[in-house]
């Protein structure tokens, strides 16, 4: 039973990570029906941004790992991620807004490869920064990493607190942002009908940039959380995580923010359970990614609108 609960918690924290990234896919898709393939790389950039912030801080602090590093790293990661996402939107996606659907998809692949390679080749060339061609150890921030905490017989990995907490805060923030602010309502309007929204005086371009930025900020949170959880980061981390997060977004119903959260958590739990409870050779960590993608395909067959899905998937 303890083992089961352990795995459940493990799955939930993994799922929270997916959920944070999935929101980025879903927000952008909800507004311009674009699958931003390169979003996984934004997550990776966010992690590297957080790491870089810590490295720069450490030149002053001599490598302190005190808790107050964390908010600074978060801000640093978010800045870099949001900047990348906004530049990407402006120069790669915006000119293609009326192009056939294939064009932005291919562009996204191009950006994805470019960003990965860019980090791999050039990150280490910045003086004082480690070489990014292999995995880089992530700083161990006090309280958020270290020995697992024993809560009523359950051992909880400390990194999990951060990611689950972050998801909670972000979700609440998103709810407030989308429903209670003018910008959020404008976003809803644009996702319903961009042309009419434009006629109503909404700056659609600005809304789209904000959608990209919000997604990127959350991806940066996930990047930092991932660093804390796994203890290292590398330039490839965005590819698989992005793919999983997309699966989560589809699972919940793409275009739906709550769906992304539910989908992320579900995917995380399913993955953890599949790893622990599928007996025989096809269980275990070696197959967990396969099961996640099989789930994606099954969802597309049986419930393409997703678990929560309010949005119609098939666009005429």
């Amino acid at each position, binding site marked *: 039973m303890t083992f089961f609960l352990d795995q459940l918690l493990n799955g939930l924290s993994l799922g929270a990570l997916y959920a944070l990234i999935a929101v980025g896919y879903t927000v952008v898709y909800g507004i311009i029906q674009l*699958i931003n*393939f390169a979003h996984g790389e934004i997550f990776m950039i966010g992690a590297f941004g957080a790491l870089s912030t810590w490295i720069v801080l450490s030149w002053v602090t001599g490598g302190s790992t005190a808790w107050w590093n964390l908010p600074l790293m978060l801000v640093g990661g978010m800045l870099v991620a949001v900047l990348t996402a906004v530049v990407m939107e402006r120069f*790669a996606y915006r*000119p*293609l807004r*009326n*192009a*056939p*659907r*294939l*064009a*932005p*998809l*291919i*562009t996204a*692949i*191009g*950006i*994805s*490869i*470019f*960003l*990965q*390679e*860019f980090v791999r*080749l050039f990150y280490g060339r910045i003086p004082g920064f480690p070489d990014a061609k292999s995995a880089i150890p992530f700083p161990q921030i006090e309280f958020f990493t270290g020995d697992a905490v024993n809560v009523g017989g359950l051992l909880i990995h400390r990194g999990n607190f951060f990611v689950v907490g972050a998801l909670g805060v972000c979700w609440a923030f998103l709810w407030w942002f989308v429903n209670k602010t003018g910008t959020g309502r404008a976003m809803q309007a644009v996702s319903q009908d961009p042309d009419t929204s434009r006629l109503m005086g909404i700056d659609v371009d600005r809304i789209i940039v904000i959608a990209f930025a919000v997604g990127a900020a959350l991806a940066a949170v996930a990047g930092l959380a991932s660093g804390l959880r796994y203890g290292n980061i590398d330039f490839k981390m965005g*590819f*698989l995580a992005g*793919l999983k997060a*997309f*699966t989560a977004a*589809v699972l919940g119903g793409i275009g739906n923010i709550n769906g992304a959260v539910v989908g992320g958590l579900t995917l995380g739990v399913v993955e953890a359970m599949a790893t622990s409870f599928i007996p025989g*050779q*096809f269980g*275990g960590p*070696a*197959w967990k*990614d*396969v099961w996640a*993608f*099989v789930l*994606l*395909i099954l969802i*597309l*067959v049986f419930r*393409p609108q997703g678990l929560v899905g309010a949005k119609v*998937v*098939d*666009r*005429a």
Partner: protein
Amino acid sequence: MRIPTIFTPALQKRYHTVGRVLALAGGLLFAASAYLPWAYSGDALDDMSYLGGPSTLQFLGMFLGLILAFCAAMGWIEPWADARKLFPPLLRISKRAGWTRGAKATGIGVLVYIGIVLIAITLELGGLVTVEWGGWVALVAALAGFVGSRLLTAGRQPSLERARTAPWVDIVAIALVLLAGLMLAAYALNQVDGGTFVVILAFAGVLTAFLLRSGIGGWLSAVSRRHRTVLVFSAFAVAFLFPFTQNGSDANMSIATQVLIFAATAVGLNIVVGLAGLLDLGYIAFLGAGAFTAATMSQSAFATIGWKPPFIVVMLIAGLVSATLGLIIGSPTLRVSGDYLAIVTLAFGEIFRITMSNLDGSDGPDLVHGSSGIPAIPNLNLFGFDFGAVHVVAGIPLGRFSNYFFLMLLIMAVIVLVFTRLNHSRIGRGWVAIREDEKAAEAMGVNVFGLKLLAFAGGAFLAGLAGAVKAHVDQSVTPDQYIFLESAFLLAAVVLGGMGTVMGVVLGAALLKLVPEKLRFVNEYRMLLFGLLMVIMMRVRPEGMIPNQRRVLEFHADDEDLVDEIEEDLPYEFAEEGS
């Protein structure tokens, strides 16, 4: 690309004649400078240090200089010949060509060419001092030619593509172009020096620019449309002759075979992406499925399947395995929406790679020995023909890779046949209709799902065939040969070359494979550059280098002039008059 307008029309009007003299003189001087030493020592490029003995690259430069001089001179020759009624048929053709535009393109071209040569010399020998005086003469000549050509008033729009030339002229032209292409490719492949390779690429680029701007390119493409069959057959004939130009060296043939495998796979992918409009990001997995199938059924000591049918059967099974996987992936996703297919194929690529790595005996049944794969796959032996042995034909020894090259050429022919024939058929029309308006196509009775599945599974089948051969060429098959980046690389070939055309993709594939192979410093940045290239191509020329006309229309829906232009050029088969 616009050159900043220092050379305003007013300026051009005033100094028109000066410009012509400058361009003519610059071109001639540039050509003559090929006989001067350009470099201080013979170690740079292909030895440009002799007085009176031009190297090959210098000859190529001379050729460009002569083109420039000729184009500039045509501004005088034409009226002169016109006044005297000399060679009326030739003159008629000449009047359709855009000589001035050609001169302007070549003017920039010679400057770029000499610029690259001088930079290469400087880099290879260390410092500007290593450029010999002849090099500076050439630079001055190129500058004069450039400025002169810029000073010419804007030339007429070429209309050579409408010139009706005799069939024999057409066929000779096709033959000449292909032969020149073969020689250039063979020459480029033989270069070990990266700088030389770049200079050859620059030469090819300048020549292409000249051909396109002067209208000769338009004529050539009209010719190739008129004689499509001749073109296809002679292209294959030229490719077939290629191994005979290598004097038995297998080093280049190894590259050529890899290029051919890559190109054949990319053409297969182009059926899916270019014709049916489906973005398949896991295409390499289908190649991999074919390769693993062939490997497990090969004579290798590590092969895990005891049944050893003849290779033809293995190849078909490999194709069918890939096609079946395609059906399994495609049938759920093709029903929903195009975007999902892209992601699911991406996921499928990962599933394939992970599964292959796991089939190692501990995480799954030991089918392919996990990440170490199946090594020591022996050479093929088809109908008593040993692919591993050297065969001497007409006194020229043809090694192992040449043998596989011929086999791949055969497979390429099959894939090209499938591609073109499907494109020009009821099915091809259905694909276009689906790309244009899926709902309307469905409502008109087009079997949308069936056609998509056909493209997807058919593409997978062809990749499976190529994979079966690849297993034997590479002699080993491991999961890490079939990763997502390879799929992206294939996609880049399609995007760069041209969606929906064979020629474009072959060109794209050749460039993408050869450039990193020949330029070591590019190799490291290869994926970075190709990622960037895909983004840039989608912005500036989404239809690719050699595009399909319909793709141009789709990507440039707002450009009315372009639409009208293309409508006029539509091949007969789309219009009524054809029947």
